C-alpha cells in the first residue's frame, strides 16, 4: 500500500502551541511519525544570564503560560538554597496554595482540550466553566489569573486576608462537587471511553526507559510524585494520596488527572486551614554567594528541575530549566505507531503537551 505523509503543525487547529509532527500513514494506520521543536524557542536560559536574580523571577514566570507559578517557585527555591535563606512558614504555605490551585486549573484546562480534540464539546464547556472558579480564586489572591507574580526571593509578595480565606473555603466545596460531576461523566460516558480506552498505551518499563514523569507516568502505574518522594516547601506536613492507575492509556490519564484535581482541592483546604501566622517574606541579600544548586518540584505535568550556578555577582552564571513535557514528547512517536489517524488527536492531547515549556 502506498504511504502518505501528513504534516500536523506548526500551525494546526489540533495544536494549541506550535510544534510540527509529520505522520506517515499506510491506509488509515500510522506507521511512522517524527516531530520538530523550536518554534517558540525564546532563549530564556541565555537571557537569564544577563538579568539580576530578582528580574529573572519575572522572566521564568513566562516560561509557561499555564504553570507559571511552579517555575518561579522552583527558581526561588534554588536561589534561596544558594543564599542559605529559610523562608517564613506562612510564605511557604501561600506558595503551596498557589501551586495546588494551579494544578487544579491546569488539569481542568487539559480535560477541556482533550474533550474538544475528541469531539466532546459538552465536557469541554463544563470543564472550562468550572475552571473559572479556580481562576477567580487565584485572581483574588494574587491579582493575576495566570501570571501571578506572587513569588519573590525569600517568600511571597502578598498575604492572605481573612476575607480571602473565607472565600477560598466557600468556593472549594462548590468546585469539588463540580469536578466529581465531571468524573462521573468521563467514567460512565460510552463515547468518551470508546475514544480513549486502549489508545496511546505506555508500559511502566517504557516510562522508566524514557524517564517520563508526572500524571502520564502515574497513569502507567509508576508511583512517583516529588511532593511525597522528596518533599519541598512544607508538603511533608500535609496529607494526600498519590493517584496511580495500571491501564497506561489516555482514559487512565484522564482519570488520574481528575482524581488528582480532587486531591489538590483537599490539599488547598488543608493549607488554608493550617495556615500559620507570621511573616510572609524574609529579607534576601542582593548578591548571591558563589555556588550551585539543583531544585526540583512537582509541576502539574511532573518533575520540573532548575539548576542555578552563581559566581558571586549580581547575575547568575547559568540557569538550566528542564520541564516535564520534554520527556513525554520522546514517547509520542511510539504511542502513535499502529493507531488510526482519527486517534492521533486523542493521543497528542492525552500527554498534555506544553511546547513553550519544552522549547523555553
Amino acid at each position, binding site marked *: 500500500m502506498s504511504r502518505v505523509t501528513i504534516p500536523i503543525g506548526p500551525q494546526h487547529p489540533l495544536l494549541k502551541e506550535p510544534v510540527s509532527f509529520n505522520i506517515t500513514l499506510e491506509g488509515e494506520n500510522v506507521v511512522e511519525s517524527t516531530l520538530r521543536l*523550536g518554534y517558540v524557542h525564546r532563549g530564556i536560559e541565555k537571557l537569564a544570564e544577563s538579568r539580576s536574580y530578582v528580574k529573572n523571577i519575572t522572566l521564568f514566570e513566562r516560561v509557561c503560560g499555564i504553570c507559571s507559578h511552579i517555575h518561579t517557585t522552583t527558581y526561588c527555591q534554588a536561589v534561596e538554597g544558594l543564599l542559605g535563606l529559610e523562608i517564613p512558614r506562612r510564605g511557604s504555605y501561600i506558595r503551596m496554595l498557589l501551586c495546588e490551585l494551579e494544578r487544579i486549573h491546569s488539569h481542568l484546562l487539559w480535560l477541556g482540550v482533550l474533550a474538544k480534540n475528541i469531539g466532546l464539546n459538552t465536557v469541554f464547556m463544563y470543564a472550562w466553566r468550572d475552571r473559572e472558579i479556580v481562576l477567580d480564586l487565584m485572581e483574588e489572591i494574587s491579582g493575576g489569573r495566570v501570571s501571578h507574580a506572587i513569588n519573590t526571593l525569600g517568600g511571597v509578595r502578598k498575604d492572605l486576608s481573612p476575607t480571602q480565606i473565607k472565600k477560598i473555603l466557600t468556593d472549594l466545596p462548590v468546585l469539588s462537587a463540580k469536578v466529581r460531576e465531571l468524573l462521573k461523566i468521563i467514567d460512565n460516558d460510552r463515547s468518551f471511553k470508546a475514544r480513549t480506552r486502549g489508545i496511546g498505551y505506555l508500559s511502566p518499563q517504557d516510562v*522508566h526507559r524514557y524517564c517520563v514523569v508526572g500524571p502520564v507516568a502515574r497513569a502507567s502505574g509508576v508511583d512517583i510524585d516529588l511532593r511525597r518522594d522528596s518533599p519541598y516547601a512544607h508538603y511533608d506536613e500535609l496529607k494526600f494520596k498519590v493517584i496511580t492507575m495500571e491501564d497506561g492509556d489516555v482514559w487512565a490519564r484522564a482519570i488520574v488527572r481528575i482524581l488528582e484535581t480532587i486531591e489538590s482541592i483537599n490539599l488547598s483546604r488543608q493549607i488554608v486551614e493550617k495556615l500559620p501566622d507570621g511573616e510572609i517574606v524574609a529579607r534576601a541579600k542582593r548578591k548571591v554567594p558563589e555556588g550551585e544548586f539543583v531544585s526540583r518540584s512537582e509541576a502539574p505535568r511532573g518533575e520540573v528541575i532548575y539548576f542555578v550556578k552563581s559566581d558571586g555577582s549580581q547575575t547568575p552564571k547559568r540557569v538550566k530549566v528542564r520541564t516535564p513535557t520534554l520527556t513525554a514528547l520522546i514517547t509520542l512517536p511510539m504511542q502513535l505507531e499502529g493507531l488510526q489517524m482519527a486517534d492521533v488527536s486523542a493521543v497528542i492531547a492525552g500527554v498534555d503537551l506544553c511546547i513553550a515549556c519544552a522549547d523555553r
Partner: protein
Amino acid sequence: MTIFTAWNELKKLSLADRDELLPGFNEKQVLLTSNQLIEAVKILLANNIFHLSTITGVYQENSLQLLYHFWKGEGITLRVEIDEQDNQVDSLTEWIPGALFYEREITEMFGVKINGLNMSNKMFLPDNWEGDAPMRRAIRVGNDEQQQGHK
C-alpha cells in the same frame, strides 16, 4: 540508600572528592572524564538509578562541563569534563533512551559532538542556523553579535 552505595562505587572512578568542587552544591556528585561516562552510567543502572532528570551544560572560561542529573529519592550528579580539543562525548541513548532530547539540546546549544546520536535535522535551532553554538559564545545578550547565526 541506593544513592549512597552508587556514590561510593562512583567515587573510585572520580577525579576529585566533593570538597574540591564548587561549594554550595546540594546533591551528591562525582567528577569524571568523558570516556568514563558510560562506565559510570552502568554503575548507576546496576544500582537501579535510571531516572535521568536532565543534562546541563555549563560553559565558562573556555571549558565545558556536562552535568548529568540523576534522581532516585534524592539527586546524584555526574559532572563530566569535556576535553576542549576532543570536544566529544558518548551518547547515553543506548542505555537510557530518554536522554535523546537532552543530548540533542546539548549538541545544538553547546556544539559538542555526541557519538552515536542520530542528527539528521535540527530540533531546537532554526534550519538555516550557521553560527556558533549559541550557549557557548562568550557574548552577553544585548550585543549586536547575537544575530550573527542567522543567514
